[in-house]
């Protein structure tokens, strides 16, 4: 476990949050495949079984449907199960339980039983993994009423949001961008301070353009913002962090300044979260826009095996192209963000 206040990686922040909750809440149990003595294939549970015992940190048999299903039963009896799927690509056998039961239990018992579960899974591409190990299918879960979908993009947010997810009274899909599991270090005090769910984080302020990104793509998006700054363009970078429910207000507040928006995600474009964000922006803030909302995403293809995955993933260049498209858009009566007509739209 990480030393207090030393700089830690995102995956170490996950471990730190799990340890904090195991230590402070006797109802928390952590389980999954190879998470005990092995500490998980990414070491996210490193040392937890040794510290908290095999009664609370459990290796399960190899059956993903089972992992998803027992969490439902445990949670209905008041435990706080934190279940790990080894990779997001292996979460699908559990969908029946996540979608049909965890997401619905509170509603279908009219509040009598609930499912305070965290389903964790490493997600996203870019680590030269085998087939089925690099998916970004957060939109499947974000579509489902009753779920929360949370994606951290830094060690501090991984720690604070995972604490919040475990303490949340409803099921949370917690997707850990494995490409940045060890990409950066940051001091993360082990103080048990949760970060708010359902709130977007403004990672960089700017008044010329709003860039929305989450997970590993935040890195490239921030890099793109730095490049734009060299050309005198100040981009605001927003990480929604909780993708469902979505904090659209922070994005629209930003658009009041910038009037132009690019949404970045690794997932395929069609029906992705970018579509939802763009739709909400035009519903709530059509008159604020000086350009169509741009989507910079993975392609609508199968996630490629690793030889071609970098061609698929949205990198800095693709983000910059999207940004330039948004910045360069000119429509009748609107020049450089200044309205010729003077007609001011409301929200």
């Amino acid at each position: 476990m990480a030393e207090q206040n030393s700089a830690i990686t995102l995956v170490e922040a996950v471990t730190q949050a799990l340890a904090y909750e195991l230590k402070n809440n006797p109802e928390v149990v952590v389980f999954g495949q190879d998470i005990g003595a092995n500490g998980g294939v990414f070491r996210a549970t490193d040392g937890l079984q040794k510290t908290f015992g095999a009664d609370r940190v459990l290796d399960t048999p190899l059956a993903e449907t089972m992992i998803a299903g027992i969490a439902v039963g445990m949670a209905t009896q008041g435990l706080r199960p934190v279940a790990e799927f080894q990779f997001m690509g292996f979460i699908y056998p559990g969908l029946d339980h996540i979608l049909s039961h965890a997401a619905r239990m509170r509603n279908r018992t009219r509040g009598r039983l609930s499912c305070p579960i965290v389903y964790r899974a490493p997600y996203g591409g870019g680590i030269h993994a085998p087939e089925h190990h690099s998916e970004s299918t957060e939109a499947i879960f974000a579509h489902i009423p009753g779920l929360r979908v949370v994606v951290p993009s830094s060690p501090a947010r991984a720690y604070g949001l995972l604490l919040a997810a475990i303490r949340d009274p409803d099921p949370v899909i917690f997707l850990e961008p494995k490409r940045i599991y060890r990409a950066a270090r940051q001091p993360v005090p082990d103080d048990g301070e949760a970060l708010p769910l359902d709130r977007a984080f403004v990672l960089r302020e700017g008044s010329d353009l709003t860039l929305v990104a989450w997970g590993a793509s935040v890195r490239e998006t921030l890099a793109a913002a730095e490049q734009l700054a060299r050309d005198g363009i100040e981009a605001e970078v927003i990480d929604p962090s909780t993708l469902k429910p979505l904090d659209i207000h922070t994005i629209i507040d930003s658009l009041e300044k910038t009037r132009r928006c690019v949404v970045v995600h690794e997932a395929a474009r069609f029906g992705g979260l970018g579509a939802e964000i763009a739709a909400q922006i035009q519903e709530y803030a059509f008159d604020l826009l000086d350009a169509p909302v741009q989507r910079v995403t993975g392609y609508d293809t199968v996630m490629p095996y690793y030889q071609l995955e970098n061609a698929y993933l949205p990198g800095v260049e693709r983000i910059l192209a999207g940004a330039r498209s948004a910045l360069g858009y000119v429509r009748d009566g609107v020049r450089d963000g200044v309205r010729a007509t003077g007609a001011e739209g409301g929200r």
Partner: protein
Amino acid sequence: MHKPRLQLQASFDIAYLQYLDKQGRETQPLPEFATPDWLTHCHRQMQLARLVDDRAVKLQRTGRLGTYPSTLGQEAIGIATGNALMAEDVYCPYYRETGALLERGVEIEEILANWGGDERGQNFQHAPKDLPICVPIATQMLHGAGVAFALKYRHQQQGIPLQVAVASSGEGATSKGDFYEAMNLAGVWKLPMVFVVNNNQWAISVPRAAQTGTQTIAQKAIAAGIPALQVDGNDAVAVAWAVRDAMQRARQGEGPALIEAISYRLCDHTTADDASRYRGAEELEQAWQWEPIKRLDTYLRDQGLWSDAKQQDLDRELAQIMEAALNNWESRAPEPVTAIFDHLYAQLPEGLYEQYDQLRDEQQGTVIGGKG
């Protein structure tokens, strides 16, 4: 062709239990729990379950209730199983469960509310920890394993007596991965759990013979290291002994067990089904010969524990219970439409306020076009 010499590595048996045969005669002395009071209780509750089913089907036929799955002919399984649980045990029912729910203290009006399309019917006021009835096939088996883990965890961590999770299903559900995954986990983790399979011979239109190649359903448990027993599911005493024995062992920390209760679905799959499309009349007629209520009734009368006069009193009493339940159900205030948001999350996310208001305004007839 060369035939290698093989050594026997393991061998298994599946036993079968029956106390009352198809004619209602004792095949062996009854167990101690089967007192006259207990037997007449089962006799009564099985008849209540049949009455609830009968009225529910009629309500569906007259458009007052939605699709309903009757338990006709399988009442012994539900009553004997539900009766074997203590209040603190946790029941994880599938959807064909009228009898077991009654034994768990679920109100008839709650059962009617649920099948009448009202989620409040799953808010079991007298069985607060039991799971709601489960519609997706066999998923409740895994929920039961999770419940059993929680019960074992509380026992280990907090020292409270070991309680038991009981999950039920039909035989069709034993073809699903969830069933095998639940048994596998329960076996390897020695969970305090009992699997009760109502083998009623039909999974909608698919007969038992087309469902699985195994000789018995019970033997499926052997692969998971779980003891299993096949019982006459129309013999309430046999079902009760098997469930009680399994629960007692689970309570002592000896792990899970599976019970295959052999019965027959005398009804359609649900009110939306017409079994005459795929099932012969002769088979159905034969199955009526060994239905569970008549069998216990014969036994009780042979023992001098039942009479026409007692039956007339019971008929009156059950009819009154049913009428009262129907009145309670029909006089329930409708749920406000905004209830669809009220229990979605513990607290409604801000992003849903607008939809909540829209729904409320629609119902008040004050909706104005567009978002304005």
